[in-house]
């Protein structure tokens, strides 16, 4: 009740200005005020920049085995930090720091790739179900139920088996497929709610064409939760891809610098050099945290109840 009057007052102030504020502009404004959102955005941005510039700023070739490091490499010793090698070497005598940097790129490709595929497929299914309803909806939703019931791990194993060998693409597809039903159901639910909302009814009553109603009113008003879910899915996709790699279902090429794979390979050397496990793990956690914070604050900013 309190903020009601306040909001009204704010609304009057807003009326005095010449142009209005759209919901999106309003959400951005609120995002900029939230410290959590800023932290999330900072972490995500850092990750994105790193991923893009990694090959150029990496001090050494991440795939090269350096004699300096190989010379000291023993079964019970992996060289630590030394001039030119910020974090020392890994179990094969490559520059650990450079591999970590380049790993950001790999994680980004997997995360974004999986999420994008999941998002597009999910939105097509959910959009169709939401726009048409009826039996289209029933059948598509039963289909997603089936997809949902298959564990991602099993799916990844099956896909890897079908493809005769694991690869990065296998991981991306396996993770993407598990996100499809999430996006589909989210969009379908939001669109169905929109379908029966007064403003869609009003547009129909106005004689607006069905296609226009769907694309102009139903879809834009249903996207909020989907966008939020996409940022959250990016975080889980990176973790899932890492865990699939860790289990050896990803690309079998050991030279590839990917955080999950690095984590997986490091387990044998955990006594020798725990940093090999520690840094990739921290990197994964920070990136996931960044996307999660961003997603959560986006959810809050898009929630009309929080507007003031």
């Amino acid at each position, binding site marked *: 009740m309190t903020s009601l009057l306040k909001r*009204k007052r704010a609304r009057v102030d807003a009326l005095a200005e010449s142009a209005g*504020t759209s*919901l999106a502009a309003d959400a951005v404004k609120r995002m900029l005020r939230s410290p959590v959102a800023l932290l999330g955005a900072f972490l995500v941005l850092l990750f994105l920049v790193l991923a893009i510039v990694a090959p150029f700023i990496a001090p050494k070739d991440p795939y090269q085995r350096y004699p300096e490091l190989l010379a000291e490499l023993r079964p019970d010793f992996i060289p630590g930090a030394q001039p030119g090698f910020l974090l020392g070497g890994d179990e094969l005598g490559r520059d650990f720091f450079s591999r970590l940097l380049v790993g950001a790129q790999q994680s980004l490709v997997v995360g974004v790739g999986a999420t994008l595929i999941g998002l597009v497929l999910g939105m097509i299914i959910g959009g169709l179900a939401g726009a048409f309803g009826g039996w289209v909806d029933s059948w598509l939703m*039963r289909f997603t139920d089936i997809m949902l019931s298959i564990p991602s791990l099993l799916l990844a194993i099956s896909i890897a088996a079908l493809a005769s060998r694991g690869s990065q693409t296998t991981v991306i597809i396996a993770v993407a497929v598990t996100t499809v039903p999430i996006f589909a159901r989210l969009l379908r639910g939001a669109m169905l709610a929109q379908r029966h909302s007064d403003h869609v*009814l009003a547009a129909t*009553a*106005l004689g*607006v064409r069905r296609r226009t109603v769907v694309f*102009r009113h139903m879809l834009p008003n249903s996207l909020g939760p989907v966008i939020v879910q996409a940022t959250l899915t990016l975080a889980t996709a990176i973790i899932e891809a890492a865990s699939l790699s860790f289990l050896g279902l990803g690309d079998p090429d050991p030279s590839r610098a990917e955080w999950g794979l690095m984590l997986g390979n490091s387990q044998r050397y955990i006594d020798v050099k725990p940093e090999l496990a520690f840094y990739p793990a921290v990197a994964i956690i920070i990136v996931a945290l960044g996307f999660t914070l961003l997603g959560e604050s986006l959810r809050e900013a898009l929630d009309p109840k929080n507007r003031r």
Partner: protein
Amino acid sequence: MTAAVEPAATAAPVGDALVSVEGLKIHFPIKRGLLVDRTVGHVYAVDGVDLRINRGETYGLVGESGCGKSTLGRGMLRLVEPTDGRVLFDGTDLVGLKGEELRRMRRRMQMVFQDPMSSLDPRQSVESLLVEGLRAHGLDKGREATGKRLRELLSAVGLPSTSLRKYPHEFSGGQRQRIGIARALAVEPDLIIADEPVSALDVSVQAQVVNLLEDLQDEFGLTYLVIAHDLAVVRHISDRVGVMYLGGLVEEATSDDLYAEPLHPYTRALLSAIPVPDPEVEDRRERILLTGDLPSPANPPKGCRFHTRCPWKQATRCDTERPELREVLPGHKVACHWAEDIRAGRIRPHEVEAVLVEEDGVSPDMPLVGPASVSEVLNP
């Protein structure tokens, strides 16, 4: 404002029907089932309604929640599909129309909604909300003309032209309802169906909107169907009033007649229940308190729908034979077997034992949505 509206304004002989509804039925199937939906029953939201609305008049439709008044309004606009019956709009049966024909017809009949916030797309500016209708019907003739038209519309509903670039959330409730009305007016309709146009607004603002609707009617020669639960508002704004109970019309008369001499027992109870802001009247008047609740529209009582709560219920006919809406006094129709006897005082009211009504959670005003998944069916 335009040529399209003028015929209604100028040539409006009394009794010239713009809309007539004949035997309209709207039944919503109740679906249950795990994998395949099975229809287990129907919600009889609107169950056989006849009414006509003359050009230039305001017809008020009152009733309590669950009586099907909103569904009737939406069914008349084909926003929900009628199960049976006809809706003749200016001679054309809307029920038979398909796709593009229906869409083009929609220009002539518009709707104003109860909740001005939810009925305006929050992502559209006022300008695009208003232009949308124009565009849909090819009335969008050049930038200049459209701009002029939008400013006209806004001034007709009493909003400053600076509103065009703003968004719905930047307005107060009353102003939003004005935007909703402007949107309806944009396409130059003949008929406006207003579903609870003021009930979501603050009391001090309601009168502004009621007056606006009246002014617009005079200016543009509009025909209104005003749907509301507040009989005081309906009586104020309407020429004729229909009272609905559980999917059917039980009484229809001019506003004055209905108030002066309600014939149906339900109308009497309804009128007596409405509080009047005057202590003298309140202390003096006698209330007819109905016992029990509205029966479920999925399982309406046999015979007269009101007999389970009627203080005038008789031993015969009431529970077996559904009364027809018939003209008892000139221009005053009522659906009650004993209307004349009640009017003459030959039948007196008596105590009514309240009948238990089981809530089944089905509202006739709410279209039913299928479950999202199997798990949703299993764990409702």
